[in-house]
């Protein structure tokens, strides 16, 4: 399983390195979303700084939807999915591999967006460790849920519209917990209070990773 996961992750990342779709299209778009939020809230710094944690995670969520779409567009072109199946890879390994590749891409996007929030909104990051832990856990959860729904909607004629509809409500708890956790770093004096939210993120990631490992077999077989 782990070896298959590594293979699939390597394949996805290599395709990304060569095609640069996430870096050249999704990343600029997510920064653009930050700029649009700034337009919507006006030039005043105060509301932007206050809302920066929430806006950051909303931008991450939208970018994640696009990244998932891209990740499964790779598989649907020229029946690459059948190829994966014919190689006899473990479905759980394919799930973990795709989730890992997606996580790497999302972490890069998050770093970029983090810089964007600091530069454009003037947000100040205080609890760096807590922020990084939040990012890691939230990304694992997002990637796991994203790959499950990407697989469910891939190959459908309506995949572009149904994926966000299915995926965004499911990952809403990630948005909530990650935002609260980040906000606690900005307001806490000395002792950050984000720990319960980190726990929630960890539970979410664990639940969706195990759901994916179990469910990917039947999903991968046909559809």
């Amino acid at each position, binding site marked *: 399983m782990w070896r298959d996961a590594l293979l699939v992750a390597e394949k996805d990342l290599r395709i990304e390195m060569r095609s640069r779709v996430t870096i050249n299209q999704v990343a600029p778009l997510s920064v653009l979303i930050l700029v649009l939020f700034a337009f919507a809230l006006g030039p005043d710094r105060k509301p932007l700084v206050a809302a920066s944690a929430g806006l950051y995670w909303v931008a991450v969520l939208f970018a994640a939807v696009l990244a998932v779409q891209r990740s499964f567009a790779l598989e649907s072109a020229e029946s690459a999915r059948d190829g994966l199946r014919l190689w006899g890879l473990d479905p759980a390994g394919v799930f973990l591999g795709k989730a890992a590749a997606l996580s790497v891409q999302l972490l890069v996007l998050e770093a970029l967006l983090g810089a964007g929030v600091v530069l454009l909104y003037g947000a100040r990051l205080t609890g760096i460790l807590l922020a990084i832990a939040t990012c890691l856990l939230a990304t694992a959860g997002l990637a796991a849920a994203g790959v*499950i729904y990407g697989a*469910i*909607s891939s*190959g*459908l*004629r*309506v995949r572009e519209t*149904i994926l966000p*509809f*299915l995926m965004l*409500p*499911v990952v*809403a*708890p990630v948005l*909530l917990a990650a935002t609260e956790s980040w906000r606690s770093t900005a307001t806490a004096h000395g002792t950050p209070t984000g720990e319960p939210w980190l726990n929630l993120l960890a539970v979410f990631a664990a*639940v969706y990773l195990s*759901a994916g490992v179990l*469910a990917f077999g*039947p*999903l991968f*077989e*046909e*559809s």
Partner: protein
Amino acid sequence: MITSKHLDRLSPPKQRSKVERYGVALLGALSLLGIAATVWLGLWVTPPDVNMGQLVRLVYVHPPVAWVAYLAFGVAAAASIAYLWKRTRSPFWDRVAGASAEIGVVFCALTLISGSIWGRPTWGVWWTWDARLTSTALLFVLFLGYLALRKVPGNPEARYKRSAIAALIAFLDVPVDHFSVLWWHTLHQPPTVLDAGLTPHIHGIMAWTLLLGFCSFTLGFAWLLVQRYRVESMRQQLDEESLTASLAERRAEADATADAEADAPTSTRPPVGTIAR
């Protein structure tokens, strides 16, 4: 497009046995009577509450409706497991899951609506971003997505399978919703009946009315489920048979044209080599 002409040609839906027919009718009648009795007890017989006053009367409707939503989603999840499990795999379970989820979405909406009617006079707002309310709204959207996914056309086997998995994932929110009032200290009150020690915080005639509400809404759910299942299986039968019927129709049309051409004088026939339309 299915027309009434098609409907006439279809074989009649499978006749149900007498026991089945009367059983379903009895179920419907009982639930209707129960709901009527709940309304009567809730509005006229039970006294106003010490704290909530007349508003307590919504308690006889809101928790039973919410319970039916949970139950319906639970049945949808259980039926999805039954479909995914290879030994019990059959389209029957997919239809049950779809029918149940649809009823669940309706009752979830009713829960949100009745809750917000209660919230306005009690909390002063129609809606608040409380954990219970938010997770219920999420549950509603999740199963709405599930219903949308079911409608996507495609190979039936693959469709049943992905719907089943989506239902199971959506169901993960139900326990979160139920325990949200205990995990987060919310504005919404903790459960009246199903608390950790299973000791109800409601007594006497009020408790009985609430119990009656629970029972009659559950019966109503069962009745709706049976009916919705029947409609769904008839629709599938219609889909299958109407395809055969229209094929037969086209074939008959083609035969008729061929006969007419054979009977017609040769001069009206198009010269060889032209394309007849």
